[in-house]
């Protein structure tokens, strides 16, 4: 311990050291938000969605209303080639000679001996022929996209061939490049089906004629195309809907409607709420009581009924799109939440010392409200706004879903879900794509709201 030095030293001391640079409330909030990875990613997603909505249609210039009849309900990333074929030539079918007076009724109708495909199976037509059944008065043709074995599920009856001499059928009904199972069943004179059936499995290829290809702008001149060539059809990155419309383009235009309602309506009712709530909170007393009781009643009003009334007021008929009635209904009935919150904040801030101090220094009411009260409620308001967006998007989707909001053909995410639901079992992508967009948007706004709440107000911080 000999090296210890007991020479007194003067330690430089500052009474109150300010070690960190002073940050404004918003700078500090921004730093906190940046530190929250989930919120930051959500912010990027929100920005990306806005870019997608605003600039998407300039990049992806497909008309959302144009129908691509070659590709109906095409899933995303489907094989999009078509084989060039000659022009369509009508088919007379296959007939057999029956004994005069028709074949005699048989005790039991058997299944046709064989069902065969005549010529190539193409998306424009599948030609079937089968062996005649003894005693059959007519035939019924079924089509299924699943194998009928082992359940005997034949699918949809697509045609009745009422002439027993006619043992063929040409299917031109909405064919897709899939594998189909055609089943043929014989029927007696009374129209009773035999329980026996014969199934043929048919792989259909997509075809296009040279003339069609030129008309659709897929090829320069018809001469260059030879039958048998393959051709690339129009691209649909997210597939098409049941009318052959491009889903990506529809999602972009739908986003304009959904996000417009989802963002503008909350803005409007939050502003209304701020005005109402700060008036109640600032004036106080009887006036405040009266205003808040009225707000309680408005909360209890049935939303759907007012939706309907507004649609009639706006002259929107059943089955038509009513974006504005929807927005007006949301604004008129959704403000009380924000109003209550702002009022609570104002009441609290009114009692704070710095308001009294400001008043002592001669601040006028307007100044107090604008300089102290509104800025100090901004955090709460911003958080409310962020959480209001997902609920507005949900409301739009719900209303469009039940046919009270945006109606076809106008795309919105909700109306697209409504349409997609109908074909959910066969082509789920038509439902999944708009539903995913709704979910991602709602998720991003929810997480952003969480992040903002944590960043803006330590007292409101959630325990997560």
């Amino acid at each position, binding site marked *: 311990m000999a090296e210890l030095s007991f020479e007194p030293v003067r330690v430089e001391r500052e009474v109150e050291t300010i070690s960190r640079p002073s940050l404004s409330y918003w700078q500090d909030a921004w730093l906190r938000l940046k530190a929250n990875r989930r919120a930051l990613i959500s912010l990027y997603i929100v920005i990306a969605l806005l870019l997608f909505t605003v600039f998407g249609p300039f990049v992806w210039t497909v008309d959302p209303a144009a129908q691509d009849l070659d590709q109906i309900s095409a899933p995303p990333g489907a094989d999009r080639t078509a084989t060039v074929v000659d022009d369509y030539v009508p088919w007379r079918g296959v007939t057999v000679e029956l004994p005069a007076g028709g074949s005699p009724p048989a005790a039991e109708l058997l299944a046709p001996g064989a069902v065969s495909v005549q010529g190539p199976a193409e998306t424009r037509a599948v030609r079937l022929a089968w062996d005649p059944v003894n005693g059959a008065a007519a035939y019924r043709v079924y089509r299924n996209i699943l194998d009928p074995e082992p359940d005997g599920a034949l699918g949809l009856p697509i045609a009745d061939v009422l002439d027993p001499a006619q043992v063929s059928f040409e299917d031109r009904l909405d064919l897709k490049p899939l594998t189909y199972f055609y089943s043929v069943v014989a029927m007696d004179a009374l129209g009773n089906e035999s329980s026996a059936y014969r199934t043929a499995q048919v792989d259909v290829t997509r075809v296009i004629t040279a003339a069609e290809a030129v008309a659709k702008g897929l090829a320069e001149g018809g001469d260059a195309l030879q039958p048998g060539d393959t051709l690339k059809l129009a691209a649909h990155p997210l597939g098409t809907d049941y009318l052959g419309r491009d889903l990506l383009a529809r999602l972009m235009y739908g986003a304009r409607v959904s996000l417009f309602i989802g963002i503008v309506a909350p803005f409007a009712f939050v502003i209304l709420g701020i005005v109402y709530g700060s008036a109640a909170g600032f004036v106080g007393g009887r006036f405040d009581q009266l205003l808040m009781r009225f707000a309680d009643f408005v909360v*209890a*009003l049935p939303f759907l009924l007012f939706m309907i009334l507004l649609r009639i007021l706006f002259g929107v008929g059943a089955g038509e799109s009513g974006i504005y009635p929807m927005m007006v209904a949301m604004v008129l009935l959704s403000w009380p939440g924000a109003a209550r919150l702002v009022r609570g904040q104002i009441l609290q801030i009114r009692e704070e010392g710095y308001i009294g101090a400001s008043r002592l220094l001669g601040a006028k009411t307007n100044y107090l409200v604008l300089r102290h009260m509104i800025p100090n409620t901004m955090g709460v308001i911003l958080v409310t706004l962020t959480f209001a967006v997902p609920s507005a998007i949900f409301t739009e989707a719900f209303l469009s879903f*039940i046919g009270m909001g945006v109606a076809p053909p106008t795309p919105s995410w909700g109306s697209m*879900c409504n349409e997609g639901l109908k074909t959910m079992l066969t082509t789920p992508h038509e439902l999944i794509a708009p539903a995913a967009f709704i979910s991602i948007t709602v998720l991003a706004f929810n997480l952003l709201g969480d992040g903002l709440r944590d960043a803006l107000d330590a007292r409101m911080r959630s325990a997560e």
Partner: protein
Amino acid sequence: MLAYTIKRLLQGVITVWFIATATFFGMHAVPGDPLAADKEVPPEIWANLQARYGLDKPVPEQYVIYLGNMLKGDFGISYTQQNREVNDIIAEHFKVSATLGILAIVFAAFGGILWGALTALYRNRAPDIVIVFLVILGISVPSFVFAALGQLGVVNINNALGFTLFPVAGWGTVQHMIVPSMVLGLGTMAFLTRLMRSSMLEIANSDFIRTARSKGLPATRVFRKHQLRNAILPVVTVLGPSIAAITTGGFVVEMVFAIPGLGRYFVQAVQQLDYTVIMGTTVFYGAFLVFMVILVDLVYGLIDPRVRLE
């Protein structure tokens, strides 16, 4: 408590009156004729219809009659199905909706409390992370997507089993009820799980839990008697608004699963602009929700001594 109950009930009655009045005058403020159908109606039939629905009288008189009828519990006759009374429609279909809704809210509440408690117990470990992820998914997916996915799931389950375990649509047996009520409760369950989780974590850090531990109580007892009991309280307070959410969600689920409930009937009436049905059901639903919120508040009062003894 009694004075509080009476006060709340009185407020509820006033709110219902407000809804009924707003509904009535809202309907009458709208230009146009509710009886004007798509096709032309001969003037004498039109006059008959006007008289039948009381539309020929002056509006204030109609209002008095309307309120009087409502007090008697009479909501009038349907415009589109002219032989049916709105009361009958409500009586017949509300049973179904109420069953569905009660099952859904029970499922949501128990699920929410259970999952929320689990996440808090396994904080930042695998079960917590998985459940929190599912919860975020749950609050971000619209109810009709759940309904559609639920139905798709039913189809797949039945296909896989080779027999019909759950019917795809319809109503009647217990099997009919299971999937729709679960689908309906899912969104609310996610919301309640989230609430329960943050409530549990907040309570876990509270002073009285520290006190309980300092008394040397076994961990299970601290959890059960101190943490869980207090963490459930905020969940109970939001059950009222949750019932409203479930009611609205019920409209969609009833449509998707073809359940003959009042919600589906209401949506149909909305699409067909059947005014008496819309008005009747609206006031009925309004009153139902107002009194459910009051009921939940009163039940909360029973659980929380701080409210009970006020």
